[in-house]
């Protein structure tokens, strides 16, 4: 279990330190030899231990000579799991053999909770809210075991408005208790909206590695379905999409119907759900039914690897002219319906480390050599489907005494497209509220698809 949790700023100073178990940072060998007597020393020792663990992480990870790429670091038999949000490091520390995925899930959840309370996670925000953070930590982690970390539920009793308990009636308090400890801990009763509305976002990021010849070396899409619900009462929802298994199962009965509809189905490799989804029902019928929390939440996460629509194709051409010159030509082709518009397109062409000058010509958008990043960055605001654009650059090199050849890192790309590259389609989202009298038709539903680039690279 998690032995302690520390939050550092970029300098490695500790902003938040919460220790749940005193086993972390203990040095057995020193222990027996140096601290032979017990008693008043004990207090001092546990202080020293905490310091040890804190310092160990700072020295070995934050101030490490090389960049530490592994999110898990083991120092002196103590494991440090860290995530970084802008300049802030969150590190969970443990001496035990814990489930690393659980620890990271908790850390991400904690970031979400903090973001829900005070927005961006920055040094200043953390300093301003440190009482709140300690309060939250008390609630979401007990003796190192993660507890209810649902923002909606937490917000009912941890507020930023100071102490409210005097004004809270006993009833309200017991209501909170029954909700937090009850079966549906993520939603309280008696929510009422004049307009029942829900928003559904399908957010996908597409990852690609392509060979210079245009062969796909690896590609996958990781997607999320994020829902924002403003529904009254305790509505029962059912979510449907073009999952291959579901479609085929239905297809057995009415084969004509599926062929008529002509809908493509997609093969989902794996998926995870928000805790509100009834997993038993998913296992037996593969239907996704749930009572949603109020407000925004992530309904599911999934990953697909087959039949991915690659929105862009990058065709690189690199020619070395002598020792001191390099000619680069890159063509990008958009590969989707001409009616759709891709946005925020950015192509990053790496340059050799001994570049001494660059001349760029591009047909569309703006291109610039960024010395600080050792790359030519080409930005295009908008681009319709089935179009093509080109950039060519001349790179001058400085002769060096290093005989190492340039490693030619891949050309990477960023973009945003208004469709799901995996091909996922929302088929329906039905809402039933048996107690209150509003029906599925009364709910206003919004569906949006956004496809973004993840690591979208082409070797050159």
């Amino acid at each position: 279990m998690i032995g302690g949790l520390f939050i550092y700023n970029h300098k490695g100073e500790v902003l938040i330190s919460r220790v749940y178990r005193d086993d972390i940072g203990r040095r057995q060998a020193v222990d027996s030899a140096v601290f032979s007597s017990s008693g008043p020393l004990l207090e001092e020792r546990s202080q020293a231990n905490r310091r040890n663990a804190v310092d160990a992480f700072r020295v070995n990870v934050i101030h490490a000579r090389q960049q530490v790429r592994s999110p898990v670091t083991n120092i002196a038999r103590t494991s440090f799991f860290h995530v970084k949000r802008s300049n802030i490091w969150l590190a969970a520390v443990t001496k035990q053999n814990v489930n690393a995925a659980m620890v990271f899930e908790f850390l991400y959840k904690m970031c979400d909770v903090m973001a829900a309370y005070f927005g961006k996670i920055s040094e200043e925000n953390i300093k301003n809210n440190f009482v709140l953070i300690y309060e939250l930590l008390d609630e979401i982690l007990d003796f190192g075991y993660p507890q209810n970390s649902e923002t909606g539920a937490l917000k009912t009793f941890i507020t930023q408005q100071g102490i409210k308990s005097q004004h809270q009636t006993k009833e309200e308090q017991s209501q909170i208790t029954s909700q937090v400890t009850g079966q549906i801990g993520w939603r309280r009763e008696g929510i009422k909206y004049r307009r029942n509305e829900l928003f559904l976002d399908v957010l996908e990021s597409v990852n690609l590695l392509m060979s210079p010849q245009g062969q796909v070396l690896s590609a996958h899409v990781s997607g999320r379905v994020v829902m924002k619900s403003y529904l009254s009462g305790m509505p029962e929802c059912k979510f449907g999409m073009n999952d291959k298994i579901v479609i085929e199962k239905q297809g057995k009965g009415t084969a004509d119907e599926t062929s008529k509809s002509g809908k493509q189905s997609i093969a989902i490799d794996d998926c995870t759900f928000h805790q509100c989804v009834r997993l038993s029902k998913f296992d037996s019928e593969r239907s996704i039914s749930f009572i949603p929390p109020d407000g925004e939440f992530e309904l599911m996460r999934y990953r697909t690897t087959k039949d991915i629509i690659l929105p862009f194709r990058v065709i690189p051409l690199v020619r070395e002219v002598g020792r001191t010159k390099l000619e680069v030509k890159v063509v990008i082709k958009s590969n989707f319906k001409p009616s759709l518009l891709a946005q925020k397109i950015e192509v990053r062409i790496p340059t050799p480390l001994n570049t001494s000058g660059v001349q760029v010509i591009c047909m569309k958008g703006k291109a610039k050599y960024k010395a600080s990043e050792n790359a030519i960055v080409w930005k295009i605001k908008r681009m319709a489907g089935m179009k093509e654009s080109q950039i060519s650059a001349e790179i001058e090199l400085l002769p060096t005494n290093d005989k190492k050849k340039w490693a030619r890192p891949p050309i990477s790309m960023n973009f945003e497209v208004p469709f799901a590259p995996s091909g996922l389609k929302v088929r329906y989202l039905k809402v039933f509220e048996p107690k209150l009298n509003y029906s599925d038709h009364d709910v206003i539903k919004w569906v949006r698809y956004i496809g973004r680039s993840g690591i979208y690279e082409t070797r050159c």
Partner: protein
Amino acid sequence: MPAVSKGDGMRGLAVFISDIRNCKSKEAEIKRINKELANIRSKFKGDKALDGYSKKKYVCKLLFIFLLGHDIDFGHMEAVNLLSSNKYTEKQIGYLFISVLVNSNSELIRLINNAIKNDLASRNPTFMCLALHCIANVGSREMGEAFAADIPRILVAGDSMDSVKQSAALCLLRLYKASPDLVPMGEWTARVVHLLNDQHMGVVTAAVSLITCLCKKNPDDFKTCISLAVSRLSRIVSSASTDLQDYTYYFVPAPWLSVKLLRLLQCYPPPEDAAVKGRLVECLETVLNKAQEPPKSKKVQHSNAKNAILFETISLIIHYDSEPNLLVRACNQLGQFLQHRETNLRYLALESMCTLASSEFSHEAVKTHIDTVINALKTERDVSVRQRAADLLYAMCDRSNAKQIVSEMLRYLETADYAIREEIVLKVAILAEKYAVDYSWYVDTILNLIRIAGDYVSEEVWYRVLQIVTNRDDVQGYAAKTVFEALQAPACHENMVKVGGYILGEFGNLIAGDPRSSPPVQFSLLHSKFHLCSVATRALLLSTYIKFINLFPETKATIQGVLRAGSQLRNADVELQQRAVEYLTLSSVASTDVLATVLEEMPPFPERESSILAKLKRKKGPGAGSALDDGRRDPSSNDINGGVEPTPSTVSTPSPSADLLGLRAAPPPAAPPATSGAGNLLVDVFSDGPAAQPSLGPTPEEAFLSELEPPAPESPMALLADPAPAADPGPEDIGPPIPEADELLNKFVCKNNGVLFENQLLQIGVKSEFRQNLGRMYLFYGNKTSVQFQNFSPTVVHPGDLQTQLAVQTKRVAAQVDGGAQVQQVLNIECLRDFLTPPLLSVRFRYGGAPQSLTLKLPVTINKFFQPTEMAAQDFFQRWKQLSLPQQEAQKIFKANHPMDAEVTKAKLLGFGSALLDNVDPNPENFVGAGIIQTKALQVGCLLRLEPNAQAQMYRLTLRTSKEPVSRHLCELLAQQF
């Protein structure tokens, strides 16, 4: 040196550095650096010439980026360009960059060396200094090779500036330390010594450093420096604190130079010239006097500088070790420091006193501080100081204060730091042994030692106790009694059990008369500890039990019961099981007499250097040798403690590290006749018994068992397997062949004539011819001396059953061989059957009254009876196939010992006796031969094939004959020839 003016400061650099400092994160820093690098690259592109200032600025930036830990792969050329600038600042930055970033790029190194050479040749002292600093900072071998010859020239040149000389001296020192072989010694060495007289103190300081280093290798070249150093030293010491202006450090004149001069003097023995010596002694006295003066300043730097000189002076006094007066004064001075507030001073004082204590002049003076030192051992807070105190106590110990020191050390041991416990244990053990007035005190001390710090008592310590007790009759009874009492404690250390087990097993009979320690009581006491002990100790106790059976026959039944118990007879540990089985059989099979002989009391151990002393030396490392080398001090203690006192000659021998008792390193002690008889008995007993394996061989982990046996060098195995050849000596009693006999024989395998043997007295020549199975050999004995040999009798001996295989007829020769004369002996040889071993030739004579005897192998080998046979390829292969049984073939693959030459090989094969057949083997490189060995009884056909492999320098030799031993023998004989 021109200072960097304000206007020359590089603003761009300052901005860049402050940008880096202000970076919030590592990523930001890397971005900033990348940007700067791109900027510099674009500037260095070479389109436009850069002015010196910007070049300097960018090189500076690159240097800064490199020092931040990023790789720099360009800009070297620009830095080299800076070297040729005429501006100091630009040159300086260039050299700085080169010193930090130089790599073994040959092209650049040449350019750099060229620039350095130019600067060295220039008349500008600052440029020369910069170049010298660069050479010293890089200090690589290439630099050394390029400039090692130039620098001494600059150093001794009359017109060099002081600062240049100073730099040159230090640069030369650096090169010398890096690669001593590169620095040529020459006439400049004499002139370097005269730099000690230089006006400039900096030059002198640098020169002293250089000379101190150089004179360690060739002290004779620099001998003249002694008097110069002394006079320089006396001038400094006698100067007032204001005389040396710049070189006065907190009222102490030139402390560094003084210390260095004193160190230099320590490289040499005391000066022989009385005047010089007197002056030096005067200096040393002045320093000691100054130490008594009140400090001129309260600053710590003042006292530090003063004490540095003082301690170096004391080191020199100790090094000379010839001025009793000074030694005593030094000792008193150190005594004052023993109670000083400064921990460092106390440490240094204790350390220096350690060396003082070993000098005969000051030993007594050191001893007066014993109470202070003991106090330091007890109360000092710093463990390293306590350690020094313990060292000093050890060094100052002699017979008069041994008891006090040992008891203090024992008392301290109870609270001592874990790190130094073992060392203190060793020291106590050595002191107790060395200065023991009576051995009961010694035994008490060691047993106390084991009781207090059993874990830290190493093997050597308790082995030593046993050796001493075994060798001293007078202490054995007391030891047995004390050990018995010590063992009665409910919990005692395993080492105590080991000592107890051994001593009771040997000398338990001495206390058996007392009803409180009757044999059954002794046994049950030991056996009560048995089960708590480790395997090694239990093995030792089993040996004790079998000794008990011998000492006290009444315990036999009990002990046999113990040995017979399943936990012993079927013990999982092989050693224990084996001992139990063997001892049980021994006790039941052997008669009392046999038992008494086998299990006799241990013979005294041979006297030699105490193994504990060796261990202590090993622990301390070679540096501490002088402190421990106390063999030369207090020789009077020898007569008390006999041979256990290390003699000065053995003190410096390397310690036997591998063995336990230090026994095996020395030649094995001569076995007394009685015990060697017992050895045979023991073997007999075992060969009759069920456990007949000769298993009592010395096991590495337990020397005790092997000591139980008679200390004969052979193991029982060797005794059992009586060497067969010795059993059947020839008719005449001849010695074994000389060691090189085999080698001499090998020379004659492929040739028939030559010199068989030669030493300063005698030369034996051989001429021989063989036909079919007959041969005739002429032996020529030449007397090389001018004195007559008398009773000269060469005889041929047939070892083993050679008699039936080979007949050799010899003719007698004259019994006298005159000086310078040669006699001839004819041998008629007939080969009866195939044979393997050559006959021996034994030559005996008297030379100048002394009998001489010499045994050689006669160069008669089976191949001498070879008849070459010519045959066609077809026939050869037919016969080759006929001899295809595996035992008929002998093959050997071996490495060539001589260069592979086809002609030589051919000659050798012909000399061997076989015919060489051409065009038989498909590979022309290979050799094929055939022949028949003619003996009287039978003929042996023989085919051979030799395949050389030139790449691998290997040969493959295949022989096929109709007789198996012949194949093998021929193969071996021939293989040795290539």
